[in-house]
């Protein structure tokens, strides 16, 4: 019942290599910045693009197998897609839009219309069945698109940026609907998005896609604990350092990144030198000062405040030191220090607070 | 904005109506010698009159003769409504009478006659031997339209031969002039047609096969020419008409297959 993807795709001069597995019963979130290759992957799963190499298998059916010259046409696949721009047919009513996948497969008109109407009702837009897409609100259109993807009971449900087109109010309502729909959908569920919050909320497992490669997979928690790329770290909101690890004095080491050096605690179980070391530092472990601090912290960096984000009674302060740092302090501290954008500060943290991740 | 659009339209309308309703000015009473004459002539006269025109121009330097060839009925109508012709040469008296009663003509002379002839494509696919064959069922016959002189004459010929009804059933097209009939036959598109003998010129002769119509059945067309009343250059127009009736003009007409006027 699962989806297994292992492909290399070339579109224009963009190259995508992706391998992952999605089991039924879990929602896999394909998360990556724009240009990472998400739309290409959607296109491959839909059957609109053929991979240059590799294999796609869904529920025992081979959708693509380059080596064996197998390619299943889109119309033969059992995939329900909610497209990024919805792509509702403008010349059909909501009901006819939803009935389309059934009618296209030969289901008689009245049966298709009945099933469409029932599904629209279940998703809360039953009374808009005879409206044209142009007359629907953003949220209503999203529900219709969702119904259309579900109506033919596909084995793979694919949601491409399902919330991106909605305004904040509609997003909240639709989010719960999408989450419930995903939970009750019996087949394989795949969510494609660039929004980490959306991904974290709706997915059980994440597949991170950057510049055409899968850089990390795991549950949101697993990734939070051990992000493997700066993108992943940004996702989970930690400070991320990658570089060369060199032993220094007294049980410490230097992590030499392209933006600067930080001092970390020497890990006993690591070799003397390491080329690809990753260090992760929680924002809450960074202190900010208006004067150069004195103390045991081995890492002190000077910089200007370039951004302040308030979240409840906490604030995340971005400092343009080298390397860049994001510190989390209380609102009280902000006013006590009189921090505004442009303020000169010193950021400090202890060597032991940096988590070195195993390679 | 809509008002301005309406104003523009109204202004143009007024200008146009104002201009259109005035009469054509005749030549100045003080007699500025116009060096150009316009001749409307039946299309069967195209080749002959073009030659006559250049001969006339050669004999009268700094003079231009402009021709408008077409079916006589159409030309008469044009002269009556637009009035830009100095000379009218018709393929039948009917249309000259028409013009005479409408606009008026002077110096009317019969200047040539023309008889009709049957033509077929060079290989004569339908095997026409004589006028009676035109009654054969399934034949494709092309004539000029009713109202065009050669069309009326041809139908007269068919009546004379007693096959009017049978031949009429064979007509597949009513052309607007004799040249179009010749074109249809020369290209092999239809089986046969009836045109003027003068239409079978030197250049046309190799492209069609001609069959004589017996004298007792044939129609002889009389061509009148006249100066149109109110012509801009009536002196020159008169000179042209004289030339056409004179020995040079007549010789040219003979060379192009026309019969003398009497």
């Amino acid at each position, binding site marked *: 019942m699962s989806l297994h993807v292992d492909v290399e795709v070339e579109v224009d001069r963009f190259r995508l290599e992706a391998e992952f597995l999605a089991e039924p019963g879990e929602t896999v979130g394909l998360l990556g910045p724009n240009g990472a290759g998400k739309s290409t992957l959607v296109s491959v799963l839909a059957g*609109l693009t053929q991979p240059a190499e590799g294999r796609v298998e869904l529920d025992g059916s081979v959708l693509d197998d380059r080596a064996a010259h197998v390619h299943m046409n889109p119309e033969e696949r059992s*995939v329900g897609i909610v497209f990024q721009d919805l792509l509702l047919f403008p*010349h059909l009513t909501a009901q006819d839009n939803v009935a389309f996948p059934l009618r296209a497969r030969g289901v008689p008109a009245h049966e298709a219309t009945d099933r469409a109407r029932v599904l629209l009702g279940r998703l809360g837009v039953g009374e808009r069945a005879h409206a044209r897409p142009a007359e629907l609100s953003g949220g209503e259109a999203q529900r219709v698109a969702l119904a259309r993807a579900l109506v033919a009971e596909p084995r793979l449900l694919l949601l491409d940026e399902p919330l991106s087109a909605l305004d904040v109010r509609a997003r909240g309502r639709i989010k719960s609907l999408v989450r419930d729909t995903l939970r009750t959908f019996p087949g394989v569920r795949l969510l494609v998005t660039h929004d980490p919050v959306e991904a974290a909320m709706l997915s059980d497992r994440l597949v991170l896609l950057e510049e055409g490669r899968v850089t990390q997979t795991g549950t949101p928690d697993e990734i939070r604990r051990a992000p493997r790329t700066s993108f992943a770290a940004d996702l989970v909101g930690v400070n991320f350092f990658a570089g060369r690890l060199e032993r220094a004095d007294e049980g410490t080491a230097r992590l030499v990144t392209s933006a600067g050096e930080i001092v970390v605690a020497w890990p006993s179980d690591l070799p003397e030198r390491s080329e690809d070391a990753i260090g992760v530092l929680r924002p809450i472990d960074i202190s900010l000062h208006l004067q150069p601090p004195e103390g045991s912290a081995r890492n002190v960096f000077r910089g200007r405040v370039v951004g302040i984000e308030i979240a409840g009674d906490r604030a995340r302060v971005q400092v343009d030191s080298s390397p860049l740092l994001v510190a989390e302090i209380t609102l009280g501290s902000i006013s006590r220090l009189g921090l505004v954008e442009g303020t000169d500060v010193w950021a400090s943290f202890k060597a032991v607070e940096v988590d070195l991740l195993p390679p | 904005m809509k008002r301005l*659009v309406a104003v523009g339209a109204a*202004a143009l309308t007024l200008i*146009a109506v104002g201009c259109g309703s005035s009469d054509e000015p005749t030549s100045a009473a003080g007699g500025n010698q116009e060096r150009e004459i316009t001749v409307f002539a039946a299309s069967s006269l195209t080749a002959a009159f073009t030659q006559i025109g250049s001969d006339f121009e050669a004999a009268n330097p700094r003079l231009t003769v402009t021709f408008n060839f077409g079916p006589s009925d159409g030309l008469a109508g044009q002269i009556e409504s637009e009035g830009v012709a100095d000379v009218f040469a018709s393929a039948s008296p009917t249309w000259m009478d028409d013009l005479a009663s409408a606009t008026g003509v002077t110096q009317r002379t019969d200047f040539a006659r023309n008889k009709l002839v049957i033509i077929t494509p060079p290989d004569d696919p339908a095997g026409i031997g004589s006028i009676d064959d035109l009654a054969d069922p399934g034949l494709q016959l092309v004539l000029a339209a009713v*109202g065009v002189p050669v069309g009326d004459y041809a139908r007269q010929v068919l009546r004379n031969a007693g096959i009017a009804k049978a031949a009429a059933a064979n007509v597949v097209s*009513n052309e607007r002039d004799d040249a179009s009939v010749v074109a249809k036959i020369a290209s*092999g598109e*239809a089986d046969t047609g009836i045109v003027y003998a003068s239409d079978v010129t030197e250049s046309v002769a190799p492209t069609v096969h001609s069959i004589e119509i017996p004298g007792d059945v044939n129609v002889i067309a009389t061509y009148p020419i006249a100066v149109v009343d109110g012509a801009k250059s009536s002196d020159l127009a008169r000179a042209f008409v004289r030339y056409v009736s004179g020995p040079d003009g007549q010789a040219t007409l003979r060379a192009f297959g026309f019969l003398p006027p009497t």
Partner: protein
Amino acid sequence: MPAVLALIAGFGVALVALPLIGLIIRTPWSRAGDILGSASARTALRLSLIVATASALVGLLVAFPLAWALARSQFRGKALVRALVVLPLVMPPVVGGVALLSAFGRRGLVGGPLYDVFGLQITFTVWAAVLASTFVSFPLLVLALEVGLRSLDVRLEDAASTMGAARWYVLRRVTLPLLAPQIAAGLVLAWARALGEFGATITFAGNLPGRTQTLPLAVFEQLQTDPGGAIALSLLLVTVSLVVIVTLRGRFLQTR
């Protein structure tokens, strides 16, 4: 809208309206009833309507695949094909008629063998009138359809195929319905052009009442003998065209 432009637009309207007004003024209203009710007028009108409608429909059949190829496919010689398609529009219709004769006449490239082997002759029949009218009007359909196809969001067709629709189903249920406004616009234009076609018809099809004498040909013939009658017939032709265009514009050409 700036005043100058409005004024010029007014002249533009006058340019089109004046000839029509002239027709109306010159029509011999006292005789008009007899002329328009005459058998030849009615025959010519009926023939014109049949030929124009047939031309528009045949034109649509021919134009659609062509427009598709031009809008969607890449192939060598595409520029040449496009130029060929536009040619009948810029060619003088009589020249078009002569060209048709050389291809489909009794001694033509294709018409010759057809006649010699099967005894089939297209000239002097109503089919010739249809062919002549189609020849001059189908480029309008190709252009309208090509524009429509280009402006169509191809993603909608892709989406349809992911919903289980085979290619013909997509064409029938997605592409064509979305193209309906352009198809209608093209049909109206082609129909109107076909209705007014003269030069190619008289050259290729000939002029015979009941078979090939469409209304424009009848007008031309009338012009020789009875200009007043010709004007009445012209007014009839213009009125018919106007009625059809205005009616169809209202019903089918509204954009969604």
